């Protein structure tokens, strides 16, 4: 009797399979159409403490170069020196080579003011690796280091 049983079970299973696949035509697709057809930018869906590109808020940077020293692979370059016109120490360059950075976060830990920190940007694809060197002080600006107000 397995002969008839085989026929019945194959008819039943094919029928059941067809109902399942047909019902899939009305289900929502799982696909996220990255990068250009997402409801909100993917960057904004990431967790707040995501380790993306580094960002430096230069107006609260104290120029202490602790981050530069903490980085195990020397991605960070800070050029600072005494400016004769202003008569005080200024920073002229603050660059992070994101192509070398491994997003370990060691630079953010010693920073006294939280000036250097991670953002949620992550799209680093580029045609030229040199564009991944991020300059935070542009146009030959001179940044006067931040000093915490005396209590």
């Amino acid at each position, binding site marked *: 009797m397995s*002969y008839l049983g*085989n*026929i019945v079970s194959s008819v039943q299973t*094919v*029928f*059941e*399979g*067809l*109902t*399942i*696949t*047909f*019902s*899939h*035509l*009305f*289900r*929502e*697709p*799982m*696909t996220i*159409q990255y990068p250009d057809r997402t409801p909100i930018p993917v960057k904004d869906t990431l967790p707040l403490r995501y380790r993306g590109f580094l960002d430096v808020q230069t107006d609260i940077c104290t120029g202490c170069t602790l981050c530069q020293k903490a980085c195990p692979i020397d991605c960070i370059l800070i050029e600072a020196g005494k400016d004769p016109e202003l008569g005080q120490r200024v920073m002229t360059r603050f660059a992070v080579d994101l192509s070398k950075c491994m997003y370990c976060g060691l630079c953010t830990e010693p920073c006294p003011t939280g000036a250097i920190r991670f953002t949620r940007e992550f799209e680093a694809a580029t045609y030229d690796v040199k564009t991944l060197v991020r300059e935070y002080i542009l146009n030959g600006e001179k940044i006067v280091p931040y000093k915490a107000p005396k209590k």
Partner: protein
Amino acid sequence: MENFITNMIAQCSWLQSLPKWVVVFGFQIFFSVLILFAFVAIFAMLAGYVERRVAGRIQSRIGPNRVGPQGILQSLADGIKVFLKEDVVPTAADPILFRIAPYFVFVGMFLAFVAIPFSAQWVISDFNLGIFYLLACEALVVIGIVMSGWASNNKWSLIGGMRSAAQIVSYEVPVSLTILMIVLWCGTMDIQQIILSQGPMPWHWHVFQNPFLFIGFFIFFIGSLAEGNRMPFDMPEAESELVSGYNTEYSGFRFIIFFFAEFANLYLIGAIVTILFLGGWQAGVLPEFFVSIFGAENPWIVALIKNFTQLFVFQAKALVLVFVIIQLRWTLPRVRVDQLMALCWKYLVPISFVNLLAISFWVVFVPEIGTKITAGVMTTFGAIIFIYFFYRVYWQLKFSKAKIRMNPFS
């Protein structure tokens, strides 16, 4: 057409040197081929697109939606890409057979279109052995496939070709027996007569006439899938085992021809099943209805409207079947070779023999009224299955608690 040809002959001097019947036949053949080729090409493109979209949704993906609005031009882009590929002929391949094999496949498919009636008048050739002719065309296709497998001089291609031959030879038996049932039932092999012996409504269709024809419908459908190398029987081109089967070594234009033949075959399966079991182009009162709506008087326009209505009814049925075939492809896994043969020789062939005997007895002994009763019962049964299908679909959606997205374009 007559006037047009007379004009053509009057204008071209080289046509005047030929006898008139040559010119008339030449034009008829030329235009038939042109229309059919355009139809097959457009169908292949659209079916390729629809198949990929349906596959996408079935697998919780979206499918191609970037080329043109909603990806509708994707097939065109793929076609151009394949067309521009280098046309490679392997050094060790049989140079002549390798080159002509795709045309055998394509011509076999194409010849079958000649006998397909799209409406009461729109059929290229209506002759009294039509259904037999369709079977013969199928055999030409298998020659092309075996030829391409052999000529490629590649073991995957050869295995694919041999599998295809074995498959078609086996499944030809239940398919032919089922066609024989229909032939016994209507007493004719003429395709138009077979359609005329049915009617527009489901209870006039052959499939619901009696239980044996109902079973025959499924046997024929399964057998056609296997003959056409469609999933779940696409052993000749099983990607996971044979790279791509008999067309592994082909590229460029010859590959497109195989591709076209595959989709032409997809349509042919739908069309033949529609003709034999689902009432063909029979549209009932619809043509008269449309004629009265448009208030057409001119006999030309009346004929055009009638034929178009029938064409649409025919295409609607055939395309629903095409959709079912596509859905089956993404539902079922590929069967093993031994399962394939077991299905054919242990199940389909004996059942179709019993069916054939039963139909012969039915035709001889059961009176008209008996057929009417079974037609009513079977139609109700079919309707119940149809409704139960959608109930199950609803149940699946509810059971899985899936998010619903009715819009197919998203």
